């Protein structure tokens, strides 16, 4: 894009800035639109599993429901509690939303099509997702109210716990791919299973790791069955109890953007990203972006399915799962996988 802009007479610096801004918008706007649609999809799937109709009034089959909700929320008054810490109270939802958008910068949408092709891409995603906890914690503290505060405590403990095992899971993938660059990780999955299957999931050593990643990503995004931070029977609405209007909507959007990000990460790290599922030439006729979107949506369907069917965990069970089961298991898999790769001469 830079050469095109330079052709119009811009200097390189200006063209670079303008091109980057356009590319950011090209990623952000579709992601936000996808979030709106995915909220509708989530409600429809959830309704179908509960034998209900779900949203069906606004637009054909209710597809415009999310937009109607957005307009409703936008027209509401923003209420800031008198005892709240005003600046932090307003900054918190912005942090959550921004962080959910930031990580998309290193996501490859097709071969070489990525905003920032940095060689520590996966570490960048880990770093950005570790920032997500601040949105929740600050909201809980700044609200100056009991339930949000409890919720923030839970969120902080939960997200740190599962980030540890996610870190080790990512190490397993990085060991096999030999790179932190997300694009290189996708390319390492080309023809991974017997030259036919594209994707790390088909290896017997990486399949259990993938299962752990799926469960950890549920906990990391605070989705059911790990949605203890907004357990309505215990904590009213959790950290967003005091929020209203657009601040509340930003949490909503940020939460779903995070879920989409985790689905995208799952698709990229284990299901072969923009590669077709099978390594046959005929499948490459379909653009990589379509494959990636299909994989993200399938991952999202798994998330919705779990949300509709699995009851909520108890908090001590959640902590036990994170620290006593996933941490030793994922650490064990790092040792086993690096041992296997060493023995088979993968690093030579």
């Amino acid at each position, binding site marked *: 894009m830079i050469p095109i802009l330079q052709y119009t007479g811009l200097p390189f610096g200006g063209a670079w*800035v303008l091109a980057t801004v356009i590319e950011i918008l090209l990623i952000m706007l579709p992601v936000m639109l996808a979030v709106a649609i995915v909220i509708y999809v989530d409600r429809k799937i959830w309704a179908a599993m509960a034998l209900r109709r779900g949203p069906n009034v606004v637009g054909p089959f209710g597809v415009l429901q999310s937009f109607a909700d957005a307009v409703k929320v936008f027209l509401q008054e923003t209420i800031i509690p008198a005892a709240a810490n005003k600046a932090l109270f307003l900054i918190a939802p912005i942090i959550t939303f921004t962080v959910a958008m930031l990580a998309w910068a290193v996501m490859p949408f097709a071969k070489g099509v990525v905003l920032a092709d940095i060689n520590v891409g996966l570490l960048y995603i880990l770093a950005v997702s570790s920032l997500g906890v601040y949105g929740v914690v600050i909201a809980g503290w700044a609200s100056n109210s009991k339930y949000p505060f409890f919720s923030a405590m839970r969120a902080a403990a939960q997200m740190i716990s599962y980030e540890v095992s996610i870190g080790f899971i990512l190490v397993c993938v990085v060991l096999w791919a030999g790179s932190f660059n997300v694009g290189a990780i996708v390319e390492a999955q080309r023809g991974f299973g017997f030259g036919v299957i594209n994707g790390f999931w088909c290896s017997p050593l990486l399949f259990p790791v993938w299962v752990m990643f799926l469960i950890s990503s549920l906990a990391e995004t605070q989705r059911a069955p790990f949605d203890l931070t907004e357990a309505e029977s215990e904590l009213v609405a959790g950290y967003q109890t005091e929020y209203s209007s657009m601040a509340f909507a930003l949490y909503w959007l940020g939460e779903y953007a995070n879920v989409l990000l985790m689905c995208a990460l799952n698709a990229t790290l284990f299901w072969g990203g923009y590669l077709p599922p099978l390594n046959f030439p005929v499948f490459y006729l379909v653009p990589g972006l379509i494959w990636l979107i299909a994989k993200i949506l399938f991952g999202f369907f798994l998330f919705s399915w779990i949300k509709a069917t699995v009851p909520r965990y108890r908090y001590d069970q959640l902590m036990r799962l994170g620290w006593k089961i996933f941490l030793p298991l994922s650490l064990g898999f790092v040792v086993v996988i690096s041992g296997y790769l060493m023995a088979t001469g993968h690093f030579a």
Partner: protein
Amino acid sequence: MIAAFAFYLFAGVMMTSGLLTIVARNPVHSVLWLILAFFNAAGLMVLTGAEFIAMLLVIVYVGAVAVLFLFVVMMLDIDFSAMRAGFIRNAPLGVLLALVLFGELFLGIVVHSAGNLALGHAASASVTPATVSNTAAIGALLYTRYLFEFEAAGMILLVAMIGAIMLTHRERGDKRGQNAAHQIARRPQDATVNVQPEVGKGVSL
């Protein structure tokens, strides 16, 4: 131009938030300013080409250490007037500490600018070639040349962790723990009884 702009942005925000960390009245604000300072330090490291260290700084300090800081500080019930009461009494000590620190910094800068301190490359060190990413370069150094130091540092951290757990762990006699495997293995027929009591007679449980 863009790099210079980014440098002054990161450096400026870092200095400001560092200062605000000290002057902020509210300890929670203080921690948040500290986090902003960490974040901008990571930005500066990216500018110098140390992207691996920058990401580690964000993951370890911002993502874990500072969250725990915030966790503790948020739960404190602080009386601000009591905190400010001892200010005059402690001020001389603070000034003394500041003077000592300033003196040391000043001395360091004077010695460095006089050329008596070689801060560049050690005699045997070589610059990493541009083709090697700095993640790979750091890994290669840590696991070959500095293997012993690296393992020793890990061992010290492990000992420190075990020590901290031993010091704070308190075994209570009346603890009733849960055995998850035992709970999962329970079946309805082991836990419930189905009785048809005769009219007028009770049930012994």
